[in-house]
């Protein structure tokens, strides 16, 4: 079964690009601008929990780090690897403090993203 990745970004362009890229790489992708969706994630969520979450930091009114912190605090979601992305250079340090598993600065290279995702999922599986 394909691994499932949830992508949350407020920019449709990024969502489209990542969805295309990840689908092409053989992942099942759920891409959304809806932050609440991520916040409400639990075992009973339709379609099950994702294997990895790609989370943008600044989400037009919401701080991705807050979302990350909540997910990492909840029992159901705390073991899901979260890869945070941002164009903001200072983000790298701050995302570690909220428990993000990795960080990529925009603009990123497709192959680098895929490499990181693969690594994180493998690690979570073990």
């Amino acid at each position, binding site marked *: 079964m394909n691994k499932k990745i949830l992508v949350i970004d407020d*920019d449709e*362009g*990024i969502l*489209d*690009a*990542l969805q*295309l*890229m990840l689908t*092409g790489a053989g992942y099942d992708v759920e891409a959304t601008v809806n932050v609440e969706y991520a916040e409400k994630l639990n075992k009973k969520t339709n379609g099950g929990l994702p294997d990895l979450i790609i989370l943008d930091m600044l989400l037009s009114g919401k701080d991705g780090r807050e979302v990350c912190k909540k997910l990492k605090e909840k029992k159901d979601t705390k073991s899901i690897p979260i890869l945070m992305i941002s*164009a*903001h*250079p*200072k983000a790298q340090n701050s995302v570690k403090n909220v428990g993000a598993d990795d960080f990529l600065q*925009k*603009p*990123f*290279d*497709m*192959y680098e*993203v895929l490499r990181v995702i693969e690594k994180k999922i493998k690690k979570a599986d073990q």
Partner: protein
Amino acid sequence: MGNKIKDKNGSLPSALAAKTSVEKALQESEKHFRALIENSTDAIALINPLGKVIYASPSVQKILGYTPEEFIGKNGLMLVHPQDRSMTMRELSRILLKPGSNATVEVRVKHKNGSWVFVESRGMNLLLDPNVRAIVSNFRDITERRLMEDKVRISEIRYRTMIEQSPMSTQILSPSGITLMVNRAWEKLWGAKLEQLKDYNMLKDKQLVELGIMPYVKKGFNGEPTHIPAVRYEPSKTVPNATKVPYRWVSAIIYPVKDDEGDIQEVVLIHEDITKQKIAEEKLRQSEQQLQAILDESPAVIFVKDLEGRYFLINRQFEKIFNISRSKIKGKTDYEVFPKETADHVTRHDRRVVKTGKPLEFEEVVPHKDGPHTYISVKFPLYDESGMIYAVCGIATDITERKQAEERKDDFISVASHELRTPITSIKIFNQILEQRLKSGKDKKLLEHVEKMDVQINKLSVLISDLLDLARIRSGKFKFRKELLSIDDLIKETVVSLAEAETKQTIIVKGQVMKKVQADRYRIGQVLINLISNAIKYSPNSDRIVVQSKQDTEKVTVSVTDFGIGIPKKAQDKIFERFFRVEGKEEKTYPGFGIGLYVSSEIVKRHNGKIWVESEKGKGSTFYFTIPFK
């Protein structure tokens, strides 16, 4: 001391005696007359036309030391001082020619003891008087008086000479206001002579009325020594055509000279010429006014304080900013006019300037009613003639708005580069997906185009990164993560990644550094990329770039050499400045923001290293940077 009648010592001449014996009625009267003569302090002598004494009253002894007996028979003329003798003889002959006439002479007569006695002698020709038949000489000792008169005369000469020679202009006037005398200093001061004042009456001088000093002048004429305040007097108004002196600033003292009775004999006016002083004062006033005007129109806050911190000059902007008038602050310290907090703040740098004697430039934030203001301030010492510091001057320019505008600009650059990154991110991904798809297809030409797009997208990303770095440097948010790294390894990695771009130049690496340095891998890599990319960019017609590393005891030195267009001398210092691009036809054809070297130099500076260039136009450039081990 009065003489008593001494019949023995004095006797009347026989002619007179003969008469008295005949006229009895006169005897009593003669007795009185005789007593009068013999008791008088004045001496009386009767002299015959040849000058021989035929009678002398007892007082002669008191005056000339001779008893009357001794004196009688002497030739009076021979006792007169030789120098006075001819004059005496002249007078004597004059009265001899005219019976009843008289003459008065003041002559020196020899005392019995040999000294000279001044006598005043009044001679009367009574030769034809049957009762006398002699020349009657009535004389008295005036030595004392003469000595006194001499003293007075000398003192008078001294006084006149003194006035004449005095450097103070002196004018002596009659009590009615007519000028009696002026000295040389006066003539020089006013450019006029005494003769030219013959129609001038000081008490009628309209100019003195206009200048408001007539009351002072009158006070002097009325007997009271008075100081007359300084005025600008124009002599040509008073004595037209007499002088070429246009005006003089003078102050004066006027005082009366009174006689023993207290009557005013003369009025003395002494001028002090203060023209030069006044001109200097006027110039000083003008220059102070100019300075104040310039200072007042300045948008900067300007002040001068003495070494005790007391203000003695502030400008209008100071008054406005600190809401205090110059009259209120003059002579006061910061602690007397401002809250302690503000005073502490303001005086902090003053002491340092005084201590070091050197100008101090700094940026400071001062609390104001509408919030904190940023000032760029320079404080510097003022030195007196002897080279001692006597004051501290401060000039502070409010750069709050400029600063805010710069911050807004930097914020804008920061936001803009963030915003630009998002679309680039998706474009890059789409492009890479496209590239991936094409790799498995047959259209290799299309693949090539897409690969070129990728290169361009990467360039765009780098440019945006540079912009963001710039904003970070400006806002002080340029942070580093230093680690111990091998500079040679970093050079190799960088060169490998750059070589992928397939440039026509070969990058030759000559490394020989063993020791590791504390540095930010990403940032130093950025410097290397920047220098090598520039080397590639600016040497399109050469085939190699040399990257070399060296170490000494203190530091690592990395150099990047190209054989390209080179940099003109005058631009070599400026190329590390923000937004600087070398001007010139050729240079303009190369792309770039003028940020790369600025960012590189900031990175090197924050590693406590140095960055510089050696270059010759047309031959190429070598960029160097150092990173110290400690």
